[in-house]
């Protein structure tokens, strides 16, 4: 803004971003479709702090004393439970939304770090199966690419009810990215604007889901665990119903969770933040006596070891990352700033995953662009990033005196805002006050 406009005030209600969107809508007659997750200000895990050990608590030596990070999912039910070395997994992102190189890089990075990666709404590719030591196969409403052979070679099955970016909405992949290979895997015409179903075609409620889970277990001879993924909307009830239906793990994805393509109005206005969702899911698990038995995988806007540790302290067993993993691969790389600008964006702002024009070669099916991502280098970057998340989580856990990251607890936390205190159910820092607590 130049100095000659300093005497004018920008409208809070109609700021430049709002004006631009109204003008865009008036020009095109179609809602804004984009990638990424919610961008507006939300209560987040940043609104919590760890109290750390001092006189009344005993910390562990930061570099010498062991602090475990392993998690097992599906023990006691599945013949082959999923053993994770670290409490961070890679969330479901489809081949189609991502290039095959990006899927391979995710598999390589996750495998090097001893954790799992996940397919997406478009079937399983050889690239990701071949490079993922632990691969979770998503079972989605569209059933694109679903087949029993892939089901049997998965290490876990994730029944997707919803995702954080759009609880209640189905998948979307615009024509630019429906290449021949993508179309063939999904049995769709090449180049159409694909909008996939938001409801499963053959079950409609928790009682049906219980039967569906039995069928899936029967088809794979009870070998692998079954997860249920929920977009965070009513996590207390939804988690309870998923447990009742027989899930080995419940994935709760908050509204900061990303997407390859969804209406902006959906991304920004449907669902609740991850911070608000985790405690509600934990409450349901505790009331059912299933906490720590049925695993809780929290997702949606996880960026750092601090986020991981806080999610675990609130009661999650594992977290899942999507957007952060893409950034680790090179999404929004400043080196491509000129190209982002040529597309009307800039490094750090790029969100048009739906367009298939990604200069970093990640969210595209363009052969020239996708060739820019070296899956080996991308995998190394992701493995390094996962290692940092793990080391940061351990550092915080040791500071709280915990010999395993899953020993972190709400008692280790304080909240910086009244909202966060109420949502997380931990005291406002410097007080003993938990807004909404009954006594």
């Amino acid at each position: 803004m130049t100095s000659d406009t300093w005497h004018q005030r920008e409208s809070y209600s109609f700021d430049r971003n709002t004006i631009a969107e109204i003008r865009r809508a008036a020009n095109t007659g179609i809602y804004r479709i984009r990638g990424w997750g919610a961008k507006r200000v939300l209560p987040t895990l940043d609104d919590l702090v760890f109290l750390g050990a001092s006189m009344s608590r005993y910390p562990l030596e930061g570099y010498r004393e062991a602090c475990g990070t392993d998690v097992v999912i599906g023990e006691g039910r599945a013949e082959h439970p999923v053993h994770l070395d670290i409490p961070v997994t890679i969330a479901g992102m489809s081949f189609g939304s991502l290039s095959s190189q990006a899927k391979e890089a995710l598999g390589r990075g996750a495998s090097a770090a001893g954790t799992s990666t996940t397919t997406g709404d478009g079937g399983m590719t050889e690239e990701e199966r071949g490079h993922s030591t632990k691969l979770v196969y998503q079972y989605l409403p569209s059933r694109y690419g679903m087949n029993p052979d892939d089901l049997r070679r998965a290490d876990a099955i994730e029944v997707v009810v919803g995702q954080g970016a759009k609880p209640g909405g189905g998948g979307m992949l615009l024509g630019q990215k429906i290449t021949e290979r993508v179309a063939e895997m999904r049995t769709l015409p090449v180049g159409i604007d694909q909008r996939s179903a938001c409801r499963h075609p053959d079950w409609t409620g928790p009682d049906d889901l219980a039967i569906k889970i039995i069928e899936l277990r029967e088809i794979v001879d009870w070998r692998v665990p079954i997860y249920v993924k929920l977009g965070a909307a009513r996590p207390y009830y939804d988690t309870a119903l998923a447990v009742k239906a027989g899930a080995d793990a419940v994935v709760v994805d908050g509204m900061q969770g990303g997407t390859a393509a969804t209406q902006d109005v959906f991304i920004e206005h449907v669902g609740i933040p991850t911070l608000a969702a985790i405690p509600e899911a934990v409450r349901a698990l505790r009331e059912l006596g299933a906490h720590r038995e049925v695993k809780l995988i929290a997702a949606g806007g996880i960026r750092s070891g601090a986020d991981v540790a806080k999610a675990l302290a609130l009661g999650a067993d594992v977290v899942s990352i999507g957007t952060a993993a893409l950034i680790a691969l090179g999404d929004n790389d400043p080196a491509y700033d000129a190209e982002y600008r040529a597309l009307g964006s800039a490094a750090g702002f790029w969100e048009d995953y739906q367009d298939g024009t990604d200069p970093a070669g990640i969210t595209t099916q363009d052969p020239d662009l996708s060739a820019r991502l070296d899956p080996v280098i991308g995998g190394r970057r992701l493995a390094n990033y996962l290692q940092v998340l793990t080391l940061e989580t351990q550092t915080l856990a040791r500071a709280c005196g915990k010999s395993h990251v899953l020993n972190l607890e709400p008692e280790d936390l304080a909240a910086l805002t009244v909202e966060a205190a109420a949502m997380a159910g931990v005291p406002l820092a410097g007080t003993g006050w938990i807004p909404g607590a009954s006594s």
Partner: protein
Amino acid sequence: MSTAIDLAEVSLRQLNQVLHDADSGGFDVLNPRGAHAVACGITTDLTVEVAGSVGYYCAGMHQAGTVVVNGNSGPGLAENIMSGTVRTTGNASMSAAATGCGGLVVIDGDAGARCGISMKGVDIVVGGSIGHMGAFMAQAGNLVVLGDAGADLGDSIYEAILYVRGEVESLGSDCVEKEMRPENLAAVGHLLEAADMTASPADFRRYGSERRLYSFHVDDIDTELAEGPGGTR
């Protein structure tokens, strides 16, 4: 010579494990009593006869051989079938052959709502009528209905082809009636023969996608004005 497996004596798990471990042969499943997930996940060329009605997801993700239910079938009969044949001699509940990718599903009686929902290449032949929202978002394959079809047939349909002999209560979004060409008459004839049903292909009408929903309509007033009359539009 078939092997009898009595669900009054063995568990569902035992039944399915026997079927998954078998390379060939015939099996008679006794006393199904509405059990769910009976004979799901079969991968080899077996012949399975079920003596009575079944619950949800019978022959789910079927890949080879034949499963015949001598009775009625619950929701999701032969869901996501890949190949092979599944038949129910009675009626089928909702979502029969949902998302099926190949093979043949035959329903001698009526089928409930959402028959052939999101079908991806399966062939379905229904001797009776089907309920509402038949072939919703159907992507590929053929659905042949000798009776009537309920409301909103073929809503949001892609490239699947629907043939109905009786009345269609209403068509869903983007589903239209299309001409019965010689290849369509031949296709119906082949499907009826495969399903062991008798009818005249000429009595069927064909329905499919008008393809108006395949792409978003995006206006661009600014470009139109910039390019002036005779621009790209």
